[in-house]
């Protein structure tokens, strides 16, 4: 009986522990191990030191996927903070229809990425799609959207006679289209987070700012923004981490092979997926996984560090 109750706590954990070890811990450790191995369709061919990493650092397609991902993150994250922040400010306090607005904004969050992608693929269709329809009705020229490999800076500056190349050409319009969808899908979630953050700011601060004659902008600048900073920071890190892992949108809207027009929507997880499951190049794919993991871990650590500070703050 005594003995039984001593092992009981472990028995309660056991089912979860088995799953965690078999399907999380072991694959994670295997990913690190495989990154140092030659492991392909034929199986394991021995350890090869850092050669997968050497290959990665000299692989132009890999670096292309990194720069596409960075473009994606730099586009999606600021827009995914700014728009929700404005919406949350508008929604704050008493407002007729508040619950309805919140429901509408939140709708894309619970909708599957695949369905969202199918719908937006149609909206972006160059020939008959509704977005080009609207543009043409307004007298503009139709765009190629998801099939446009040219960089957006290149497209904007071309009429002025400038022809930037390489990274200066900017993300392709195809990638920008994916960014639009990604922002649209995450607006509701971030708005809800900001709204919760805003409603946690005590009213007395605003009364004090009012007494000091701060004005609308002043009270935003000196009360809202600093007191909201923990939420802003959380949203910043979380959307960065999520954007680094974009896959379904790319896979469905700019389907394989290739990763979009001229590989311009080939983001890192898509590239990893192709290496692992089209070529079954597990060793190399694992090296890319480890690279991704280190980037995301760095971001998580920053979030924890700063996140801890904010506890003392409030």
């Amino acid at each position: 009986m005594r003995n039984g109750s001593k092992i009981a706590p472990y028995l309660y954990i056991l089912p979860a522990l088995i799953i965690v070890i078999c399907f999380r811990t072991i694959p994670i450790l295997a990913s690190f191990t495989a990154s140092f191995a030659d492991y392909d369709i034929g199986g394991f061919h021995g350890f090869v030191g850092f050669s997968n990493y050497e290959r990665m650092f000299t692989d132009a397609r890999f670096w292309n996927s990194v720069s596409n991902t960075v473009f994606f993150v730099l586009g999606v994250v600021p827009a995914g903070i700014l728009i929700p922040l404005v919406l949350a400010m508008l929604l704050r306090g008493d407002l007729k229809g508040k619950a309805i607005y919140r429901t509408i904004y939140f709708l894309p969050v619970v909708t599957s990425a695949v369905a969202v992608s199918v719908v937006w693929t149609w909206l972006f269709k160059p020939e008959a799609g509704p977005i080009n329809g609207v543009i043409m009705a307004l007298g503009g020229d139709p765009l190629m959207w998801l099939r446009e490999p040219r960089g957006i800076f290149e497209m904007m500056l071309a009429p002025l006679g400038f022809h930037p190349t390489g990274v200066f050409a900017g993300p392709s319009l195809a990638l920008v289209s994916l960014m639009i969808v990604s922002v649209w899908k995450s607006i509701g979630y971030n708005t809800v987070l900001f709204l919760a953050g805003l409603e946690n700011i005590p009213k007395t601060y605003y009364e004090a700012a009012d007494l000091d004659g701060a004005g609308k902008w002043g009270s935003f600048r000196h009360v809202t923004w600093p007191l909201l900073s923990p939420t802003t920071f959380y949203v910043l890190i979380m959307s960065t981490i999520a954007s680094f892992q974009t896959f379904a949108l790319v896979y469905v809207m700019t389907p394989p092979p290739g990763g979009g027009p001229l590989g311009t929507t080939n983001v890192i997880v898509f590239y990893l997926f192709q290496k692992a499951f089209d070529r079954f190049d597990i060793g190399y794919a694992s090296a890319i996984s480890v690279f991704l993991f280190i980037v995301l871990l760095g971001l998580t650590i920053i979030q924890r560090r700063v996140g801890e500070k904010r506890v003392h703050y409030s």
Partner: protein
Amino acid sequence: MKSRQILRQALLLFGGFIMLMPFLWMISTSLEQGGIQNYVEAWNRVPFGTYFLNTLLVTGLTLIGVLITSSLAAYSFGTMEYPGRDKLFLLFLSTMMVPQPVYLAPSYVILAKLGWIDTYLALIVPWTTNVFSIFLLRQHFKTLPKSLYEAARLDGCSRFGYLWRVALPLSKSVIATIMLFNVIGSWNSFMWPLVVTHSEKLRVLQVGLSYFNQEQSSNYQLLMAASTFSILPLLILFLLAQKHLVASYSRSGLKD
């Protein structure tokens, strides 16, 4: 003051319109030429019935697994004291730091070794535990007063009986959150089923829809009809539970 309110409403209305637009376009296109018949045709063009059943089965069984393993583990982590507890909990939490794409390839190899590729086992078993759910429930169990436990034990309630008859009934709100998160997660899961299954018999809705999109890329009416019925179940669930769901998202977001 009055004009401020009007401006505010106008901006929110415009924003709401942009957010709803894709859905409205989806529905109106799905009804073009043929109306409701498009839905019947999309449904029969590929075995969407099978895809739905597979998704329902996978979502349901995964959820049952998550509820069982999470309550047991959270109960142990949150209310019992024993050597190694915190280290084990840390082992669980550490797996949350690693996103799925990072260990996708080795997972495939492990499933292949087990002979599980292209089986329901591969779709379900690895997801029958969810560390975030364990975490949420543990936090809640920790808030239950110890005196409650002692009183129940004095009344002759067994250790498991306390979990089943006292602790879980007091955790309905957290359980509802866990259920919602896991149902949405399983229903919308795409990358995993895409990788671990190949045959049409086992295809889930998201994978089926993505293939349908590739095959019928010029058949907008059918594609939009299929998209509509694919998102309908979660849409209904969301509308029914939206208050709880939105609150859960905002709370768990800020807490984490």
